Every structure is written in structure tokens, then in C-alpha cells.
């Protein structure tokens, strides 16, 4: 019953009026930056950090955490409504979410995104509270070889389960990985595929690719079809989910929560894999798998749950080891250190207010996000009723501003244009953008882990087969590839998909 007492203590901290207020501010700001394309949480948190200086450490961290998961959630809104993913995790949401919006089910998609996130956040919060230190051990048991194989599995599955030809999607994954190689090699300092363009030495921008391939390409496609120049093809439709949609979402949310909670604890890359892993799982096992590609609610419910669960459990390495996994976490460590607190294994005993208050506030923050966002859904959906001739220039302008403001560099805007045109060509050629983006995100991490694993094994590739975790991942990847390629030769993959699972 220690857990309950501790959580009770945490809620005592989180539910003070001051902390609630800062949690609310954090969630609202987070949602806002998530909705606006191109504005990342890091810049915002940095700018807002000073307003927490007069506040106790717990309050500051609660607000920062609110911004962090608020941004994760807000990104889904534009992904569903406008096919504009702002974050890695919301790329997946565009796949089914935007299709749902076009069918007039935007309200349902947004509702399940909010409800699924809330549920997953609640479960993950309990998980962090109950078994944080234990889960750290799981995270630590992943070595470079295991990370490599996990990411390799992710790429294979993304190619295998994409729509249409396996060969085409493998091609897109490979192209994505190659795009990820552009820039200065992190280990040797070598310039790769930069063609002497200085702007490319820092690599191709994720936001440029995502906005171009999804948002801009979609606009070009829409302009091509004069009769359907509306984001929505049908009428607005009911804002609420139907009973059927709700019933179908439940198992998807449960699976997404599991996948997300587990992958979230892996520092670096875990969270990026979570929403994608969940999407692939739903596509394979959910009851609505035949609807995938046309707007299946499971394809929104699962990944949204996974993404939120992962963003909660990714706090575990920070809280128990004191090592930040990403820039947002580093900011939080910075905020703690300014207040004289060193995060790490002793924080639970030394700063129980902070530790349990933060955990309780995670749940409070999720509840607030639900309260803020559910009433907003009606407003968001009305946005779709705006005539397309007004809509698309606004989207273009917002994209341009968002991309430009990343580094105050016009080159990023040009990049977005190039990817917009490329994205349009890809849709014409039935090449899917999602596997390419996943390749782009996972490729560089895979390379880093591959090199490190090979350095540690003195160049012996057997390390990938000797480590049990790695060997299991590779075996699954191999089976998935063979299972999909074999029937593909004879009768095409879509029928194979229908038979599988």
C-alpha cells in the first residue's frame, strides 16, 4: 500500500492551486505549439522557463511536463485535420486520421485521439509510479546491437505492412534511410551527400520532409481535382463517435498503451517507434484491418495511445538515472539543477514531493488535456467547413512560416517545396511516404548503433545473433519479410494481408 500512500502524497502536491494553475498553463501552451506547425517544444520551454524561476522546483517541472505532453497531443490535431504532422509521432496519425476527416469523421478521430491518449497516459502514469526502477533495468538491458535490431525490425515491418507493392515500400524505406545519411557524419566528420551545399551539412530537416510529403503534396493533389476542392468530401458528420467506433477502439487503445509503455522507456528512439509500432500492429490484428487506408479508427486510436504512453514512460530513465534522453528532458534537468536538485536514483528518497508530485501531475495533466481538447473538437471541425480556396493558402503560409522559423533560413522553405513536389509525384506513383519518413528517422540511429555494436564486438557481426534480444528481433524481421514476399510473388500482397493475422 506504499504505492497508494505515495500517490496520495503526490496528489496532495499536484492538486495545490498553484501547481494546478501551472499545469494548466503548461498544457494550454503545449497544445498550442503542437497545433502550430514547426514550433517545437524545446524553444517554447526555454522561453518559458524564466516564469517558473520564482516558483518551487516541483511547480516548474509540472509546467514543463505539461508543455511536453501537451505538444505531443496538439500535434495530432493538425495531423488529423490538415494532414500536417508536426512531430515524428504524429506522422502515423495522418495515415488514418486524415482519411477519417475526409470521410466526415474528423470529430470521431479527434475524440478518440483525446480519449485514447488520456487512457494511455493514466495507465503509463501508474506504471511509472509502480515500477519505474524496475523498468529502468529493462531499458538498460538494451545494448547497441539490440537497438540496431529493434530499429531494423521497425523498418522491415514498416515496409512489409505498407499498402501496395512490398518492393516499392522497401525502396521508399531505403530512400528514407539514405536521406537520413545526408549531412556531417557524426563519427568521422565526413560530409555525406551534401553536394557542397553548406545548408545540408546539418542534414535534411524532418519538419521540411514531413510538411512537404504530407501537407503540401496533399494540397497539390486537391488542386488537381477541381470537383473535390474541399478538405472534406462529405458533410461534417456527427462529432461524437458511434457506438461501433467506440467498441472497435477499445482493443486498439489497450494494445497501443502496451506497445507505447514498453517502447517509451528505451532512451533515444523508443518513443519514435511507439506510435509506428502500434499502427503496424493494428493494421495486422485489429478487426477493422480491411479498412486501413480508408480511415480506420483503430489506426488513430492505437498510435495515439501508444504515443502518449511512451511520452509518459520516457520519464523513467530521467527520474531514475538522471540522464536526459532528449533535449526536452535536458531542459528539465537544467531546471532542477538551477533549483539545486540533482536528478538520479536518490531523487525518490531525497525529493519525494518532487518525484511523486510529478507523477501525480502527469495524470492531472492528461485529465486537463482531455478537458481542454474535447470541447475544442467542435471548433476544430468547423475549420474544415472553410472553403478550400481560403484554406489552402493559409495552410501554405503557416507551413512556410513554421519551417522558416525553425532556423530562420529560407533554405528550409525551399526544401519543403522540393519535398512537396516529390510527395506529389510519390502519390501519383503510389509510393507511400510513411515508410520513407520512418527510414529517415530510424536510419541515422540505426547506423550509430550498428557502428557501436561492431566496435564493441571487435568487428564480429555475430553479436547480432548472440544477444538474445537482438536475435529475437532479427528472427521476427526475417519471418515477416519471408511471409510477405512469398505470397507476393504469386498473388499480390493485398490478398496476403487479408489472409494473414
Amino acid at each position: 500500500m506504499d504505492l497508494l500512500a505515495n500517490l496520495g502524497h503526490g496528489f496532495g502536491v499536484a492538486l495545490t492551486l498553484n501547481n494546478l494553475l501551472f499545469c494548466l498553463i503548461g498544457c494550454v501552451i503545449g497544445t498550442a505549439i503542437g497545433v502550430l506547425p514547426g514550433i517545437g517544444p524545446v524553444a517554447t520551454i526555454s522561453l518559458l522557463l524564466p516564469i517558473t524561476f520564482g516558483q518551487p522546483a516541483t511547480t516548474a517541472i509540472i509546467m514543463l511536463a505539461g508543455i511536453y505532453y501537451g505538444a505531443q497531443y496538439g500535434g495530432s490535431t493538425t495531423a488529423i485535420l490538415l494532414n500536417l504532422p508536426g512531430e515524428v509521432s504524429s506522422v502515423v496519425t495522418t495515415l488514418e486520421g486524415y482519411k477519417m476527416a475526409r470521410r466526415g469523421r474528423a470529430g470521431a478521430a479527434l475524440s478518440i485521439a483525446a480519449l485514447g491518449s488520456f487512457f494511455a497516459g493514466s495507465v503509463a502514469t501508474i506504471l511509472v509510479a509502480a515500477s519505474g526502477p524496475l523498468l529502468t533495468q529493462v531499458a538498460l538491458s538494451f545494448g547497441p546491437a539490440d537497438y540496431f535490431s529493434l530499429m531494423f525490425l521497425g523498418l522491415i515491418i514498416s515496409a512489409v505492412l505498407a499498402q501496395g507493392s512490398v518492393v516499392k515500400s522497401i525502396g521508399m524505406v531505403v530512400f528514407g534511410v539514405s536521406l537520413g545519411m545526408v549531412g556531417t557524419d557524426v563519427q568521422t566528420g565526413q560530409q555525406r551527400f551534401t553536394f557542397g551545399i553548406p545548408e545540408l551539412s546539418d542534414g535534411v530537416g524532418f519538419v521540411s520532409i514531413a510538411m512537404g510529403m504530407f501537407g503540401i503534396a496533399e494540397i497539390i493533389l486537391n488542386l488537381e481535382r477541381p470537383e473535390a476542392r474541399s478538405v472534406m468530401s462529405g458533410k461534417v458528420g456527427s462529432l461524437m463517435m458511434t457506438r461501433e467506433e467506440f467498441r472497435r477502439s477499445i482493443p486498439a487503445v489497450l494494445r497501443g498503451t502496451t506497445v507505447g509503455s514498453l517502447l517509451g522507456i528505451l532512451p533515444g528512439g523508443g518513443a519514435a517507434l511507439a506510435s509506428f509500432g502500434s499502427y503496424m500492429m493494428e493494421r495486422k490484428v485489429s478487426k477493422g484491418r480491411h479498412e486501413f487506408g480508408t480511415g480506420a479508427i483503430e489506426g488513430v486510436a492505437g498510435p495515439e495511445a501508444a504515443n502518449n504512453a511512451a511520452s509518459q514512460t520516457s520519464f523513467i530513465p530521467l527520474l531514475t538515472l538522471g540522464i536526459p534522453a532528449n533535449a526536452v528532458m535536458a531542459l528539465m534537468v537544467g531546471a532542477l539543477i538551477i533549483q539545486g536538485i540533482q536528478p538520479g536514483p536518490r531523487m525518490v528518497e531525497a525529493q519525494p514531493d518532487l518525484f511523486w508530485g510529478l507523477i501525480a501531475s502527469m495524470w492531472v495533466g492528461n485529465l486537463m488535456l482531455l478537458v481542454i481538447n474535447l470541447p475544442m473538437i467542435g471548433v476544430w471541425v468547423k475549420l474544415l467547413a472553410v472553403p478550400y480556396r481560403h484554406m489552402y493558402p493559409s495552410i501554405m503560409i503557416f507551413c512556410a512560416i513554421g519551417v522558416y522559423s525553425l532556423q530562420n533560413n529560407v533554405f528550409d522553405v525551399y526544401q519543403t517545396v522540393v519535398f512537396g513536389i516529390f510527395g506529389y509525384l510519390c502519390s501519383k506513383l503510389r509510393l507511400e511516404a510513411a515508410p520513407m519518413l520512418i527510414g529517415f528517422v530510424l536510419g541515422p540511429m540505426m547506423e550509430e548503433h550498428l557502428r557501436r555494436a561492431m566496435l564493441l564486438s571487435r568487428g564480429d557481426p555475430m553479436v547480432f545473433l548472440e544477444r538474445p534480444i537482438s536475435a529475437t528481433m532479427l528472427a521476427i524481421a526475417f519471418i515477416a519479410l519471408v511471409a510477405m514476399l512469398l505470397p507476393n510473388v504469386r498473388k499480390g500482397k493485398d490478398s496476403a494481408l487479408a489472409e494473414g493475422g
Partner: protein
Amino acid sequence: MSWAVGRRALLACSVPAFGGATRASAQAWPSQPIRLIVPFAPGGTTDIVARLVAAGLQERLGVSVVVENRAGAGATVGSEMAARAAPDGTTLVMSNIASHGISPSVYRGRIRYDAVTDFTHIALVITNPTVWVANRDSGIRTLADAAARARSASGLDVATSGAGSSNHLMVVRMGQLVGKELNHIPFRGAGPAMQAVIAGQVPMMSDSLPSASSHIRQGSVVPVAMASAERHPSFPDVPTFREQGFDLASDSWFGLSGPAGIPAPIVERLHRETMAFISTPAVRARFAELGGTPGTMTPAAYTEFIRSEVATWAPLVQASGATAD
């Protein structure tokens, strides 16, 4: 960036307009948020110190100071970005022994900035010794253990914050003293490297003391040897390399720099505020706890110091045979 920046920029533009100034001048600085580039991943010494300095400058200058991690290639990726930024005092970088001392030699021919002429060097912030730590269950407690492991068939893996860091050179030089090359495992910064050592993926690590100190205090890793002439006052129980029979010492340093051509008044103000901040009792105490000494050099002295560091390291890097490949 966000609306907050926009609004501030707008305010900043409108105020000098009344004074007749048409362009942002040194008088108007600081009016916009300052970006402080950390050329390593979060969690290392550069990052820890940068976040302290950012908080201090923020309070003293009255504008936000945003830390941005740009890791890779021995801290040269982030430093190159800073070298190319506009010299208006809104982009700064944590210059350090890797990016502005050793990497220019280790990444020779690939690095696209001059550590001296492409920067305005502002202040030396902290110097500190290097410490070697081991995983708790690695069985390594002394340098003799480490040397024995290195000479065994399996060899010894040593993690560092990256090729081109002072730790990289330590690994190479230690290998020469042991008589068997150590297996250097570079990371994007001390944060991820430390995590791999705590997890036991790599048994040993060479690290700047400030990033290792909290992990040593918490008992997550075992300190094996301090690469300083004398035992460190904050860690009197940790023997030096020399005491254990290996004649090695290595200090690393971290400072504040910006692109070449920052106007003198801005440099002067940044230097003054940084010095004032790092000599406050609270920061001195914090530095002592981390295991570092605050710097005292003038901007000119710091520039000279970097010039001499680049010159000193070039033959040492060549002699050691250290490369980034």
C-alpha cells in the same frame, strides 16, 4: 520560434525606432533571445555548464538564453553552425577542448572552420580534470585491473564523449602506456556514454569530472583514477593516474564563444556578466561540487589560450595517431 519571440522582436524593433536608430545596434543588444549552442548531446559537462551559464546570463541580461544541443563529429557540427551564424550576439557556442583544441587536428581536412579566426572568443568558464570511472560490476577497481583487462584477449572497451575529445586522446595515450591499444567507443556526448557504462554495455569511461561527479556521488559508477597532478579536493579518496603508475594528466576546458566579428561592446558585456556570474558564491560552490575551477581570462587571453591549444595539440594528435575513423 513562437509568438513570444515575435512579440519581443516587435518590441525590440519599435523601441530603437524612436531613438532614430534604424538597425539593431550594440546599444539595442540584448533585445532578442540568445541561442547558446552546446555541441554535445544532453547530460555531459558542456551541457551541464551551459545550462548554468544560460540561467545566469538570462537573469543578468534580461532576455531568454536558449540552450540548443547540436552534437556530432567531435563537437565540430555545432561549432561550425555557430561560426556561420550572424555575429550579432544572438548566437553563442560553448567552445571547448574538443571543438576548439583537439578536433581541428583529429578531423583535419574535414573541419570547415578555423578555431581562432572564425570565432569571437568571450570567456573561459570552467577547467576541470578528467576522471576514469568503471561500471560497478565490471570488476575494475584500479588502473592495474584496467591494464590487465586491456592486455587480456578480450581487450578493454572505453567509452568517451566522442572522437576528438580530450578523453579520446586519454584513451589513445593510456593504450600506449599499457602497451596494448584500448578499444575506443565514441558517443555523441558524455550523457549517452555514461548511460552505456551504468548499463554495463561498456565497462569503463574517460570523462570530464563535472559530468561524472554526480554519478560517482550516487554510486552508479566506481571512480578508478583522476587524471590530475594532485588528488582532487572534492574527491580526496580517488587516487591519481600517477599514484597508480601511469604518468598521465588531462584537463579539459569549456568557455563561451560566438561567430567572428561580434561588436566589442557586446563581447565586453557578455564577458563581464559571465565573470560576475561564475564568481558568485553559489556558482563557485556548484563548480566545486562538480569538480571544476572557474576561469578568469580576458577575451583576448582566452583567444590566445585557444590559439596555443590548437598549436599544442596538433603534434600530440599526430604523434598519438588518434583519428576519427
